[in-house]
């Protein structure tokens, strides 16, 4: 087994360093920002970050295996062992400027292959689907001392994904072509909802989000919804979401956390390699993240963006030049606050006997170790909260340390 640089559960971090970090987090105070992007549909980690140095990789991926850097359609160079999908040019730039950490062979504790249960576990923060009706990020916001105004987080979209549901006050926001409400009508509806335990707080959340959005009008403002056919509209909506996220996070008194999701990662057939279906989706994602950095401006230096997906895909291609549901995959952590320029992986290898159930990349890192590390260092969530409320029954999973720049 080839071992890559790997930080195991904080063991390498001296107590002195820890103290420095805590002090720094306090100094950063309310400026730290966190963006969670959920890639729904199971991203193929072996295509996004191909293990070029693994001798079993070319045989499994056959005609879709990436060649090395410099060759036509070749992967972009990372650390010599892993490469990066050539559609991820912005991420590669971040890697070069030490603002991207790639984590590989990562998985949630879920070991079946249903997207929907897989996403549920990824978001509820336990080991089991449907074990909780609230999400780890909302619970972390409840426990975080650095939360800002009333709305600690915002979800870009009409509704809250499970990861954001829970006791902490959060809101959702989406741009709309519908006319703003008449003030008198709004006052009457507010009265009508006064006794309603669901609608009264929801309406208040919506008004709070609108107020923050309106306050941002001066510095670029919130995006307007875009029309257009098919793919163009898809790309435009991506840009809309990213610009809105940045619009909220730039506000000093605004939410500290933004969440959005993307779909289209379920590549069962004709996945493609340097070109094709997955390449197109990755290029859109990459462009969206580049736009996020631009839109965040000086806030980027205090921001950490985490990209996670519910599980990976089969190590081998299936019979239709795609991949079926698998187990471990990659996660990306990027942003000005990230101590990047690294691939963190305890690489299990792709030899037949190393694969999980003989078919999937095996998991060597529980995604909760990554999530705990980010929440501890970026949002100052205490170890006790992380173990008890945020990720119940997870004391065996030690947080990854040193993910955030000290």
């Amino acid at each position, binding site marked *: 087994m080839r071992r890559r640089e790997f930080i195991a559960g904080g063991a390498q971090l001296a107590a002195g360093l820890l103290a420095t970090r805590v002090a720094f987090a306090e100094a950063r105070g309310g400026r730290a920002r966190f963006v969670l992007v959920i890639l729904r549909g199971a991203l193929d980690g072996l295509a996004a970050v191909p293990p070029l140095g693994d001798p079993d990789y070319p045989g499994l991926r056959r005609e879709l295996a990436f060649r090395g850097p410099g060759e036509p359609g070749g992967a972009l160079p990372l650390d010599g062992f892993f490469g990066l999908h050539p559609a991820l040019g912005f991420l590669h730039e971040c890697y070069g400027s030490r603002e991207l950490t790639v984590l590989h062979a990562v998985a949630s504790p879920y070991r079946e292959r249903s997207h929907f249960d897989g996403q549920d576990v990824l978001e509820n923060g336990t080991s089991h689907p449907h074990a909780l009706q609230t999400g780890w990020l909302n619970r972390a916001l409840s426990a975080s001392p650095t939360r800002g105004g009333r709305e600690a987080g915002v979800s870009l979209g009409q509704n809250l994904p499970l990861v954001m549901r829970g006791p902490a006050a959060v809101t959702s926001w989406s741009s709309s072509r519908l006319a703003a409400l008449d003030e008198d*009508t709004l006052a009457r509806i507010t009265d009508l909802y006064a006794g309603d335990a669901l609608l009264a707080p929801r309406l208040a959340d919506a008004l709070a989000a609108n107020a923050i959005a309106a306050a941002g009008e001066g510095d670029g403002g919130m995006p307007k919804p875009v029309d257009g056919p098919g793919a163009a509209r898809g790309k435009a909506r991506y840009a809309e979401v990213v610009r809105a996220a940045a619009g909220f996070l730039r506000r000093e008194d605004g939410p500290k956390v933004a969440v959005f999701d993307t779909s289209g990662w379920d590549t069962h057939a004709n996945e493609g390699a340097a070109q094709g279906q997955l390449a197109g989706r990755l290029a859109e994602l990459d462009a969206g993240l580049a736009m996020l950095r631009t839109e965040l401006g000086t806030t980027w230096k205090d921001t950490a963006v985490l990209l996670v997906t519910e599980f990976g895909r089969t190590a081998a291609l299936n*019979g*239709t030049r795609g991949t079926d549901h698998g187990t471990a995959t990659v996660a990306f952590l990027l942003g000005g606050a990230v101590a990047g320029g690294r691939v963190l992986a305890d690489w299990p290898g792709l030899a037949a006997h190393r694969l999980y159930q003989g078919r999937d990349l095996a998991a060597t890192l529980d995604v909760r170790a990554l999530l705990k590390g980010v929440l501890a260092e970026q949002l100052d969530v205490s170890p006790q909260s992380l173990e008890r409320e945020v990720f119940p029954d997870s004391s065996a999973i030690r947080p990854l340390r040193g993910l955030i720049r000290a």
Partner: protein
Amino acid sequence: MADSIAAVIAANRFGLGARPGELALIGTDAREWLRVQLRAPPPALASAELRSSAQILAQALQVRREMQAERKAQSAASLPVDAAQQRLPQFLRPIYVTEVSARVQHAVATERPFLERLTQFWTNHFAVSIDKQFLAGLAGSFEREAIRPHVLGNFGDLLLAVETHPAMQLYLDNYLSVGPNSLIAQRRARHDAPHLGINENLAREILELHTLGVGGGYTQQDVTRFAQVLTGWSIGGEGGRFAAGEPGRFVFRPEVHEPGAQLVLGRRYPDEGFAQGVAVLRTLAHERATAQFIATKLTRHFIADEPPPAAVAQLADAYMRSGGHLPSVYGALIDAREAWLTPLAKYKTPADYVVSSCRGLTLPLDAERAALAPFEVLGQRTWQPGSPSGWPDRSADWDGASALMRRIQWAEAVGARVGSRRDALQLAPELLGANLSAATRQALAHAASASQAITLLLAAPEFMRR
């Protein structure tokens, strides 16, 4: 009073929201009003413009061929290929618009709203999504051909109609799946051509989403073997990725089918070609896990986000006793005590909200594009759940702050459009009956204008729920 709340429940929880006069029509026997809707055969959607999926798909394949030829010619002449790219969407889009418009008009006008809600339930259970190529043109005909005719039939027949429909074969990739030891794969191997093999997408989703449910006791091995059983289930076309044969229709291709018996969920299925897959579907349709899964989903949809176990058990028993006879299962739903309890707490989905508003206000629904807009604006674009699990069915999935704001904004736009042509104060008891609160009645009575009153009625807490 008890009778009148039963009418409100029948019209809203089981139906699509009351039209004026509907509560009076339901009268004192709400259960019988529901049962009557299940007696006659389901109606077909009436519109001369609606075409069969085989016709649509055959034409779409033709358009794609022309598009590919054009693209080749253009790139040879160094011209931009964007115009060619748009040909297929431009062909599919009007079909989608016509289909959605026919469906919405039917939902708003129907006098059998329970039947229509059941139809939409099954379409969502067997979800396809128009974000995949061709599906924008096929989702409507899929519902008309595979779902509607079987809503009052047997689950096993519904299941077979769905899995052999070209839309489902396309959506879950099975038409491409090849048995690793099939004649075609062996021929390819001799020529050292790219590897062919199975695609397990459809097999997995049949087990997980269509029949047994995720905890239904199948293993990865069952998925793989079932996928081998389903090899050869495909779609006729021009050859290439589509089989030869009648374009746009389901075909079984023996040369692609994996030979040999298969062991699925502990049962051996001899190789009888197409019939092997049919036999597995028949078994699945009669499993207790399937009955339990269907019962749970129906109970969640009609009764409560957390389905009462006693009601689930009654529905599952009715399913098993009747061998999956769906009207018997619906009968158990009507008979469930929990279905008739107040409060009406389930938060409407955006689609429910739009349809019930149109029914309640007897809005003249514009045909074509305008019929689509509210569903898109409120976040539930018709036939685009984005994944094979369909739209989620719990309040928390729909009650976001931004979603609520949009509903209210849309209600205000509707109020402005309707103006004084509707009297909200007079309509409110017709739509909400015994569920109309004193606070809402007061707000309507004191509204500043007729249009504001309409907005307040549609925004009222009791109109947001069913």
